[in-house]
């Protein structure tokens, strides 16, 4: 299978008056079509920087990223990006928020509008489409944020700590929810998180980054013994604890 995302010898150095900081060093990995990959690492290891590089928002100082074989030269419509908070705009209704990406890409047509309505309907938000974001719960807002991304029809979803602003209970539900949507819509996903359980529960593979400068320390294939896998049921499998221990050891956290 041909990888959708290829990260090839990527390195990133930040310049400042106090000197040079190497955030990432020689990163190599790839993501296959339809795969869910998590990136875990200690805070400040450059996880988010890596996502920004893949999305074309910033450029690496060395190495290259390929999307379906094409070199990344800037932001691409193939990519949908989800940020830590939902960042719904308070001054727009739910429907207008969902249309933001299409407006920016100047792609508001009859069919894309219908697509937006269809997504809102499928994921239980149609009746809220004329409400404002502050009238929705945190989980629903996150769902709207995902639809805002999905409506531009990206192949690859980049989730940058997309659940960390939610409280734990909501987070478990939203994990299931978003996982389900991503699988249904048949998207490839790359999740950055510092939460080991979350990374195992959602991913087919986990990429472990080291402390700064971030390098790929290990890649774990997650094989869980359960039918109809969901993030929540994954947490109940016997293998889950084993992976947790492995990654925890790999993270090598000292306080």
């Amino acid at each position, binding site marked *: 299978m041909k990888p959708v995302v290829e990260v090839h010898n990527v390195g990133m150095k930040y310049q400042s008056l106090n000197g040079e900081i190497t955030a990432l060093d020689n990163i190599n990995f790839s993501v296959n079509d339809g795969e869910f990959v998590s990136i875990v690492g200690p805070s400040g290891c450059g996880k988010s920087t890596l996502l920004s590089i893949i*999305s074309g*928002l910033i450029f690496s100082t060395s190495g290259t990223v390929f999307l379906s074989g094409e070199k990344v030269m*800037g*932001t*691409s*419509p193939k*990519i*949908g*990006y989800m*940020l*830590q*908070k939902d*960042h719904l*705009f*308070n*001054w*727009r209704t739910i429907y207008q928020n969902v249309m*933001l*990406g299409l*407006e*920016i*890409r100047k792609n508001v047509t009859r069919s894309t509008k219908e697509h937006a309505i269809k997504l809102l309907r499928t994921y*239980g938000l149609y009746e*809220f489409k004329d409400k*404002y974001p*502050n*009238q*929705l*719960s945190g*989980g*629903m807002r996150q769902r709207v944020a995902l639809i805002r991304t999905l409506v*531009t029809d990206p192949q690859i979803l980049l989730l940058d700590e997309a659940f960390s602003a939610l409280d734990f209970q*909501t987070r478990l*539900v939203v994990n299931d929810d978003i996982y389900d949507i991503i699988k249904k819509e048949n998207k490839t996903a790359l999740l950055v998180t510092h939460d080991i359980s979350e990374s195992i529960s959602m991913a087919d593979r986990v990429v472990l980054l080291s402390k700064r400068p971030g390098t790929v320390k290990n890649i774990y294939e997650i094989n869980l013994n359960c039918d109809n896998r969901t993030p929540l049921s994954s947490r109940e499998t016997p293998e889950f604890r084993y992976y947790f221990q492995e990654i925890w050891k790999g993270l090598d956290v000292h306080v």
Partner: protein
Amino acid sequence: MFNLKKDSISHRAQVSGISPEHKDYLHRVRMEKIFVRVIQLLIFCTALLLWEICANAKIVDPFITSQPSRVLKTMIRLYVDGVLFQHIGITCLEAIVGFVLGTVLGTLIAIMLWWSEFLCKVLEPYLVVLNSLPKIALGPVFIVWIGAGPAAIIVMTLAISLIVTVLEVLNGFLTIDQEKIKLVQTFGGTKFQVLTKVLLPASYPTFINALKINVGLSWVGVIVGEFLVSKAGLGYLIVYGGQVFKLDLVMTSVIILGVAATVMYQGVVYLEKMLVKNKT
């Protein structure tokens, strides 16, 4: 989680059957509101009455302090002469033009400074100096350059409100969550789209704030301008009245000024309410 909305609705329905305690509470709130209004009115009437009585009894010299009945008479005389609304009109027009120009130009300059970080860095010391400088000192300069007339007064008003607006709006832009801007960029948004989709709508409370500040400042500008040079307007009446020792005229003009400025401020507050209603 998705029942949250329905829960809150059913909760509200429960509340709508008003309990005696709640009724009592609502009653107390209303009574307090009425009480405050009555006291306010009482203070106002007492002050007017005291002023009138003291002036009549020659406890204070009405020639220096004027008195409510004389103010009223002056107002009527101005009206009969047909100049009352002319003076009010000119001053209000100058204030409104200065106010609108100050806000619009200030916002445009703030956008320019946000657009080019380089320009912002270069202009920073000039902005600091202009912000610190008492703009009133520029009055004579404007009169010589522009000529004695409404144009000079409007420029005076502009000078007072412009820099404050620029700094206020620019500061509003810079405190907007960078992640919101990043969101637009992840969709491939241009700088112009960041401006129109995020910055301007998100700065809406900043604009209202700037408007409120500018209402006050533009009146300062207009009156100072009219003090320096004018043949009509409330500021002109105040200065003229002071020079010829007609305190009746001065007091009348100050009172009209107070009413006009309040009306304009309330206009902005009303505008804010209208816009807020449409947003949430």
